[in-house]
């Protein structure tokens, strides 16, 4: 359950070839150019567009929860729940509150998940979106509690739930309490399941460890974004055990599709349309032709 260090893209200084010294052209400030860590090409940030894709190789760069909401929900339909929840320190981990405060400042988030209710092409659904920009989306008490409440409310309101996962695994600073969130979320999903309600899990980069071994894997339907790192044990841990390098495809979305653990890989451009279609297909009663 190690945290994945891989960055989605790295900021670099403008390449020298950049804007030829044309007379009136404004100089391009730092951060206007990024390098795709898959195809290594230099990209002008505006070309990444709202979907945050590499214009050359279509790599899906990591999104914030807010950006994701903008792409998925009908305009102004998202109603956030439990927005003020923040972590306490169950294990008295040294300086945990400082670590949390720093992560909050950097990400503009309270913790690793945003939850609420929204409409997708008019279909009402509960939605939870994890954000890897907050401590790599690690699951501690806040992530576990917000997901659990979202599932419980979906059950009560008889609504579907869609969860976008992005997590390096359990929040180790919260010790055994972080492990218990796996049980708590899975038990809540069991009740939602028993009521015959729909759960769609969408795995995004990265989904590993305790989140993979709980709610991420429990969708009636499991979608994945292309090229995401999806697995249980950390790649380096396995490489250390078997003492050899693993191929690049190991633990990718494509690997999980091939081995039967995701239903479909869906490009970000088609995600809203796909979710809308699934919600529509589940909004009518199935089966009985009379």
């Amino acid at each position, binding site marked *: 359950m190690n945290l994945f260090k891989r960055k989605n893209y790295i900021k670099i200084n403008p390449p020298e070839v950049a804007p030829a010294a044309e007379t009136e052209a404004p100089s391009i400030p730092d951060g206007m150019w990024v390098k795709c860590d898959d195809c290594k090409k230099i990209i002008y940030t505006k070309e990444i567009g709202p979907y945050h894709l590499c214009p050359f190789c279509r790599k899906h760069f990591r999104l914030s929860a807010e950006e994701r909401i903008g792409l998925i929900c009908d305009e102004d339909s998202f109603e956030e729940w439990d927005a003020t929840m923040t972590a306490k320190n169950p294990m008295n981990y040294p300086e945990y509150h400082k670590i949390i405060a720093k992560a909050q400042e950097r990400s503009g988030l309270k913790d690793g998940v945003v939850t609420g209710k929204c409409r997708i092409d008019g279909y009402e659904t509960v939605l939870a979106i994890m954000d890897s920009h907050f401590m790599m989306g690690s699951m501690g*008490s806040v992530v*576990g509690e917000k997901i659990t409440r979202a599932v419980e409310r979906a059950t009560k309101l008889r609504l579907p739930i869609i969860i976008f996962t992005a997590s390096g695994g*359990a929040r180790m600073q919260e010790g055994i309490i972080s*492990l218990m969130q796996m049980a708590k979320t*899975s038990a809540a999903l069991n009740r939602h399941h028993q009521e015959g309600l729909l759960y769609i899990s969408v795995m995004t980069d990265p989904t590993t460890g305790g989140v993979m*071994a*709980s709610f991420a894997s429990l969708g009636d339907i499991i979608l994945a974004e292309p090229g995401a790192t999806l697995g*249980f044990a950390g790649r380096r*841990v396995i490489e250390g055990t078997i003492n050899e390098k693993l191929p690049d495809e190991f633990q990718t979305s494509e690997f999980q599709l091939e*081995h039967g653990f995701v239903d479909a890989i869906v490009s970000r451009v088609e995600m809203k349309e796909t979710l809308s279609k699934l919600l529509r297909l589940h909004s009518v009663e199935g089966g009985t032709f009379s």
Partner: protein
Amino acid sequence: MSNAMEIVKKARMVTRPTTLEFIEMLFDDFIELHGDRCFYDDKAVVGGIASFHGKSVTVIGVQKGHSIEENVMRSFGSPNPEGYRKQLRLMKQAEKFGRPIILFVNTSGAYCGVGAEERGQGEAIARNLMEMAGLKVPIISIFIGEGGSGGALALALADQVWMLDNGMYAVLSPEGFSSILWRSPHRVEEAAELMKLTAVDLLKNGVIEKIIPEHRDGLENHLQFTTEYIDRFLLEELKKLCAMPVEELLENRYQRFRKYGSFTEEDELEKK
């Protein structure tokens, strides 16, 4: 050495009695059942049907070995996905026939390997958690040695979780904690202490309900001393759990796990 690390060492001792030895002492007529009906028979998990005070029960546990050869065969007590799927199959069978389930936990964690990933280690653990939340028969989980991470939790979504004096339960090993959070191999003892992984700490934090005594001259020398306690506790608790209406049993199990969390909902930034 710190007290917590001493317990971790004891929990891991190769001489520590294994699941099959506990089963032998506690139950009659144990018959082992094999395989997950999908891929193979993971020998890191053993399970079957047995008789306890004249009633049938399903018993399942993670099995370590006492020698290198045996440990290789048992993947050192780290189950592959098929081990968890065998466990699920036997639990569903128990539910069908109305048998209580008794689980023995002794694992450093789920097996880490290419095959385990290819065959869905994460899915196997997740599935057990979700299914166990709804099983309509009593489940009691006993930590007899190590309890590491999701690989242990997959056998511990139970109505009651008990632990021997020198058992342990943590989100990862103290070695892993030290190296991942502090980037140092030298702070393992400090990690063990901080992680609150001992039976006493876990009881205090409400993660377990009971501590089962071990003889001071070693569990391996006086197994019966401990199994006599387990026998008595199991009998008492199963009487209670079996008398409970199913709805109440499941509601209690749900609430048992629902309560874990440490958070605040006051907006402290706003106040400042």
